[in-house]
């Protein structure tokens, strides 16, 4: 009944019912936040962006025509907010900076603590590479490769053709591979030695 529930919930939101607004926000906030986080990385403006995304959603809610599912439509709004943010900021996003000493290749320890640290550093370096990309390329890559959406869905979300989206993802992948060739930490993060991927759970991230 999710679809009908969404329709009814939107109708209630359109009447300005605060409880409905709250419910819609609670229902979709985790997904939108996760998408924004994966696109933009650990970002000090995340609160504002999440807020802006949902304000946009509520302002344009009348425009939702039930042709797409509500969650897809909200994701599209969130992606537009992310795009505007990236364009406004130029290619540099306020992700956590990488210290000079972090750039030095540390001896690769294989203990669990060291591997988690390596994973953290790998993420930072990955987003440092992504910071150099155009907003469209970054969105295409992160939505497909990190957020796990299909190429078709990514293309729909960013409003590009499937071919253009594929091309952007492919080019970005090449850039990251080039960067990884010169950065052992990033290389280790992208292609971890051994079968296991580096564990990095939410608790530790926070």
């Amino acid at each position, binding site marked *: 009944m999710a679809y009908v529930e969404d329709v009814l919930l939107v109708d209630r939101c359109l009447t300005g019912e605060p409880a409905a607004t709250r419910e819609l926000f609670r229902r979709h906030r985790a997904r939108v936040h996760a998408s924004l986080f994966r696109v933009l990385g650990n970002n000090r403006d995340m609160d504002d962006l*999440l807020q802006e995304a949902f304000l946009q959603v509520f302002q344009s809610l009348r425009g939702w025509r039930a042709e797409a599912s509500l969650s897809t439509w909200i994701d599209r709004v969130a992606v537009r907010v992310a795009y505007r943010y990236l364009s406004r900021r130029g290619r540099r996003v306020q992700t956590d900076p990488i210290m000079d000493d972090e750039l030095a290749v540390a001896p690769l320890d294989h203990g669990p603590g060291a591997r988690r640290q390596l994973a953290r550093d790998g993420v930072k370096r990955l987003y440092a590479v992504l910071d150099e990309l155009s907003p469209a390329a970054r969105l295409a890559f992160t939505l497909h490769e*990190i957020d796990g959406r299909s190429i078709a869905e990514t293309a729909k979300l960013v409003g590009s053709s499937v071919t253009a989206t594929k091309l952007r993802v492919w080019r970005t992948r090449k850039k990251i591979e080039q960067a990884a060739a010169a950065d052992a930490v990033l290389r280790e993060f992208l292609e971890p030695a051994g079968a296991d991927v580096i564990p990095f759970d939410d608790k530790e991230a926070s």
Partner: protein
Amino acid sequence: MKLVGRIPVEPLDDERLTNIERRIVTGASEASVMRPVRESRIPMVLGFAIIAVVVMCAGLAGWRLRGADAPAALAQEVPLQIQTADHRSTLDIGDARIESTPSTVYTVTRPGGDGVLVAMTRGKVELEVGKRGKRAPLVVRAGDTDVVVVGTHFTVDFGDGTGDVDVRVTEGVVRVVRHHQETRVAEGQAWKTQRGLIAIAVEVVELGPDRGHSGSDTVEIDLSKAPDVLHDRVAKIPDSRIASAGSNAGTASHQVGPGPEDVRPRRLDSTSDPRLDLKTLIRTQLVLPALDVKEPDPTKAISIYRNTAAFQKGDEASLAIYSMAVVQALKLGRTGDAEQTLELYVRRFKGGPEYLAALWLRVRITCLRDFDNVCRQAAYTYLHEAGDTPTSRIAERITMSR
């Protein structure tokens, strides 16, 4: 490179989330009571400066052009002859847009400076004419027939230039003048040399069992011979030419099962009484049947539609919700529920595949109950959205009913 699931999302703590939620709820309630005002990116002073520069430039240009002829491309009375090759072409003359089919020949002149004369030699033109105000009318001349326009959208078909003229009006009103006789042709009507004034109705042809085969056909209703029933405000109209086309076979496959009311389209008998009661007429109009879910029990069928609507989107959801309304209204007689379902449909699927059918069903439900304001409102909405169809003529009568 496999990154899905490897970038951990740092969760927002409860306090931050509560703050965001509070701000969103406040912002959303403000948005629901007022339209968002776009912030001007240009400071007001700069805006004034731009306006001043534009005014100065316009004044300078006017001074430089003083005494010159009117600037429109076709302001001069020199005829402009257009001959369309083997594709459609469009000519924009500023105050009208003329689209012509292949092999059309016509000449445009501006008699008297502000009038427009489109003299056709052969072919077919479609015109979109803006409001002419105090300017002289635009006239399309096809042989001995003049079509006089004050602002409208219509087509004139002159065939090979020797035969009859066919004028069809899709918006507004034109006057057709022939042999000093004038006929007013309104939106949804047509005029033909041999037949005079006729109404053109677009009729939806039956949907195939797979819903992939649909089309439309036009029905021509002679108005010159029939009484002027569309304007007499009496609930009787002739039925002779508003027949339903198409077979019942495709429709029958969409039935949910026997119910209190048969929703299959019925043909109106052209030999029957020329005047029918408005309610009878409403009953005789096609109601797009519900989706066939092979379930004879209407209540169970509704459950199936509800599930479809829950898990599908787009066209599937549209059809499911519409079907729910059909079964509620026509099988179960729960017209109140059906109205609510239709309200939901109309709000969410404006322009959807079953949109017009839903609007008509609403007209049917409300007007078979009573010719009150609710019914008239529903009929008006249908009329506004449907354009020219046989049922919209009935809707038009409903809006005028007392």
